[in-house]
Every structure is written in structure tokens, then in C-alpha cells.
């Protein structure tokens, strides 16, 4: 908990200052990029301090990634991940790879059309599709859990394609 607080403080500082020197001060703290519910997330340009932190343990060049986008969207009745979704997956894949103790909950959802229990199954299938993609990106089974809410928890109100498109999703929850 203490660690988390320190981290959030560090990230908040980063967000405020947005400068490399601040970030590099924390480079030794094994900064896990935390994108919590409060919307805190890391950003990097490839040369800032946080990136050198993210690369800890890899020995490789700094990688920039953002956990700001936590949602993968799907086509009607579909489970394929599009390029926008793949970017989300890649970012979280890096996060999970660099933070082996981090865990992710994949919440699958469907739009309201069709039947409730089929949509539960569809939501699970989508969440598993994201889980597979994350594993391809380096995450381990132990880091991932899957739950489906089907059409029960819509993100958007409304009964049109605009709302449905926002509701066919997998949310990546830390």
C-alpha cells in the first residue's frame, strides 16, 4: 500500500511537472506504471525519466507505453481485436511483462441485443480473446482473470449503434 502511495505521488508529480529530471529521481523505485480507477496513468515520449524506469529488468532500450486506454472494443457478435484494441493490448502486455506481480481483471461485455445468457457467453469469449492476446504479448496466466457481465452493465445509454459500439467491449481493470 505504502509503495502504491509513493508511486501515485511520483506519478502525480510527473503529471504535474512532466519533466525528465523528476522521473529519473524515481527510477530506482521500480516504478510500476499504475493506471488505477482514478485515471492515473503513465505517459512517455521515449526520452523522459519514466521510460527508463519502465525498462527496468529488461535491460533493453526504454519503451514508452500508456495505460490510459483500458478498453478494447469489438464488432457485432465478434471477438477479433482491431488495431486500436491491439494497441491497448500491447501497452498492457508491456506493463504486465515489466511488472510480474501485477494482475489484470478482464471484464467482458456485450451490447443489449439478443439474449442475456448468450451475451454472457459472448462477453466471456471477448475477455478470453483479450487474455490470449495479452499472453502473446508476454503476460502470464497467473496475472489474468476473466469475468463476463454480458449486457448487464452497459457503458453507454441508448438503443442505437453508437451506444452498442461502446458497450461491446472488454475492460482491463487493475
Amino acid at each position, binding site marked *: 500500500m505504502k509503495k502504491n502511495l509513493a508511486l501515485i505521488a511520483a506519478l502525480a508529480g510527473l503529471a504535474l511537472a512532466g519533466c525528465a529530471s523528476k522521473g529519473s529521481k524515481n527510477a530506482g523505485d521500480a516504478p510500476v506504471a499504475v493506471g488505477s480507477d482514478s485515471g492515473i496513468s503513465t505517459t512517455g515520449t521515449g526520452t523522459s525519466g519514466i521510460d527508463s524506469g519502465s525498462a527496468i529488468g529488461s535491460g533493453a532500450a526504454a519503451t514508452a507505453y500508456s495505460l490510459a486506454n483500458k478498453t478494447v472494443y469489438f464488432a457485432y457478435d465478434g471477438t477479433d481485436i482491431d488495431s486500436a484494441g491491439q494497441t491497448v493490448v500491447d501497452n498492457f502486455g508491456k506493463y504486465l511483462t515489466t511488472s510480474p506481480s501485477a494482475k489484470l481483471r478482464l471484464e467482458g461485455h456485450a451490447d443489449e441485443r439478443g*439474449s442475456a*445468457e448468450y451475451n454472457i457467453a459472448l462477453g*466471456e469469449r471477448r475477455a478470453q480473446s483479450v487474455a490470449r492476446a495479452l499472453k502473446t504479448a508476454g503476460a502470464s496466466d497467473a496475472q489474468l482473470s476473466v469475468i463476463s457481465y454480458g449486457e448487464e452493465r452497459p457503458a453507454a445509454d441508448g438503443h442505437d449503434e453508437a451506444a452498442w459500439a461502446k458497450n461491446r467491449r472488454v475492460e482491463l481493470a487493475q
Partner: protein
Amino acid sequence: MKKLLSLIALFCLAVSPVHAALEFTVSGGDVGAKPIAVVPFATPADINFDVAGIVEADLVRSGLFDALPRTDMLEKPTAVNQIDYRNWRTLNRENLVLGSLSRSPQGGVAVRFFLMDVYRGQQMIGFDMPAVGPEQLRVVSHQIADLIYEKLTGQKGYFNTQISYVTAAGYGLARRFQLIVADADGYNPRTIASSKEPLMSPAWSPDGKKLAYVGYERGRSAIYVHTLASGELRKFVAEKGINGAPVWSPDGSKMVVTLSFETNPDLYIIDIASGQRRRLTDHYAIDTEAAFSPDGGSLAFTSDRGGSAQVYVMPAAGGEPKRVTFQGKQNLRPRYSPDGKSLAVVNNEGGRYSIGLVDLQTGSLRVLTDGPLDESPSFAPNGGVIIYATTGSGSAELGTVTVDGRVHQRLRQPGEVREPAWGPYGR
């Protein structure tokens, strides 16, 4: 202080059972509706209850009857020897209902009623209903409506039954779910469960004494069994992944559910007494939403093993599933009619989701509702009416439709009303 406490207690009592009752509207019942008149029953001055009003409302809601307004009645007989049939023939009434309430010497209130054939000037049926406490008069009224309905239509009535449904309100973290049981006329709604997490798929036990449903606890789903009389709640299945779509076998000894813990959603049959479990389907596709045939021999279910979601039927003991729906882009969530001859399904034709009725003999599908977002069909126990979830002006509400597609009803209340399940006879 004591006074204040009791006041608070009173306030709580007054508040807790308050739920918006479902509000009914009927359409499509005017053409061919039978003209009837239900005369107010003679009622002792100290009993404030309108039996005839409830009987009339039940009959009218079925869409099969057109009732004469009380203000148009030329006389208000409460016994057979008071009837002047000319007064009813003049008003083109084919049938007349009349009756009386009386204090029974053994305690309670007894209701006597008669159904008359106006043109023949004859009694069709007459009953002395067993005496009941005043709080049971609503049930007696529904029983009377059932008897009249059966006599005049040849089909068993369905007014003295219950329905369950789920209400949902709010978005995000503010979302709340409630599982409700109410009388079939929407009256007397009771909250069975409430949760911040989804409540789904209520399923009545064949004796009407229990409800199985799906709930979530700390981000995991489980199937619960709730005993209505005692309020006892049992966690029945809680595997990793999906625990969904519970249905009871017609003899009440088994349940078929959808579980995904082994690989992906498949059907499992569970012996309720022993908890012994057997996997019925093993396919990489989604298999879910099972329904028992009334004889218990077959299961209908949704599967997308053919590429799109369609309805399949297989032996309840296990065996090869056979596809039974061929009309429409998708067909989902089957429910057998009480005679076992047809399946009510959710039919998706060109993005319009309607309630369809599949004739199992011919394979033909008849669309009963207009959609566009109808789901969760459930037969009334007489097989004549289907209740389903639909979209009203903005929010989810319930609809009913007669199996001939003629009479439509809407049941609404503030917030979303979904996943209706019609209870069996007897309560």
C-alpha cells in the same frame, strides 16, 4: 425517545415494501373480444374489497373480453333470481357475472359467484369459494377469473399465477439490480434479492416454491436457489467462469446449467439432492440457455456451433444435438410451450429481435412481436400467452402477447424491467 423509535419503525415498515407496481396497457384485444358484464358483488359494509373489479380487470387484460362499464349497467343484480335478462340482451352482453361476499360462520369471508348465459337465460357455472381471510380475497378473485376464463375459452386461466422479473436502474457504480416476484397482474411486488451486481435468469421450480437465479459476488458469478416461503438462500453452483442459465427438470429433481470452467460454455445436468454433475455438451462453440421439454426427455438450447446462434434440441440424457431453427440470422433462448409442440425463441431477422414461435413438427417460425429488441420469452402455464422483455419509450419494460399474436400488453414501471419468468400453477 421510545415514541420516536416506534415512529421510525412505522416509517420503515411503510417504506420497505413500496415498489412501483407494474402498470398495464392492452392493445389489439378489441376485435372479436367477447362482450361480458361483471356486476359489482354484494359486499358486507365492513369489507372494503371489490372482487368483481379484479375479476373484470383480469378478463379484460387477457384481451379476449370486452366488459360493460358499470355506469352503463341498467341493473345490478347480486343473485340469480334478481336478473332481468332483457336488460343485458339490450346491451348485447353474451355473458354476465354476479355474486356476493358473506361472513362465514367459521370465520373468514366466503364468495359465491355465477356465470350466466344471457341469451339462454341459464347459469353456466356457479361456485361457493372456500372462506378465506380478507387478505386472501385478491387470490380468490383471480381464482374466480380463472374459472370464468376456462369456461368461456376452453383454456385454463392464468390469472392466479405469479411472475418474477429483474429490475435494473442506474449506470456504472450506481447501478442496482433487484429480483422481484409479483402477482401475474403486477400487484404485490416483493423484492427477493437486491444487489449492486447483476441478477439474472430467474427460473421457477416446477412446484413454484423456489427460484433459481444468477447473482454475482465479489466479481464472480454463482447460481443461487431461493426458497420463497422461508427466504432461505442456497449457493448452488459457483465454479470459475460462467455459472448461468439455470432451468429445472419438470420433476424438480435436476437442474441444467451453463458452466465454462472446463473450457468454454457448455451444458451440465446436476442432480439437486446429491449435487452429482454430468457434462451434456462438449463443443468449442457457445452452448447455453437450455430449456427442458415438458416431458423431461429433451433439451432445447442456444449454440453458435454452426457459425451463428441457433436453437438445437438434444436428448436430456445426452446425445447428438439437432438444429431446429432455420429462419432468421439468429435464434436464441428457447422455451418449450406447455404442450411441448412449439418453442418460443428470440428471433433476429435483419437486426430486428422479435419473439418467434417455432412449430417443432413443421420447423416453421411465426414472428409474434415487432421487436426491435425483444428477448426472454416465457410461457404462461396455460400456454396461451407469452411474457417477454422489450424496449419501451426509452427503457426496458415487459410485454405479453397471445400465441396467436393478436393481443399485446405492456407492463412498465420506472427503470428497466427485464428477464420475466412466468411461474407455474399453484403457489
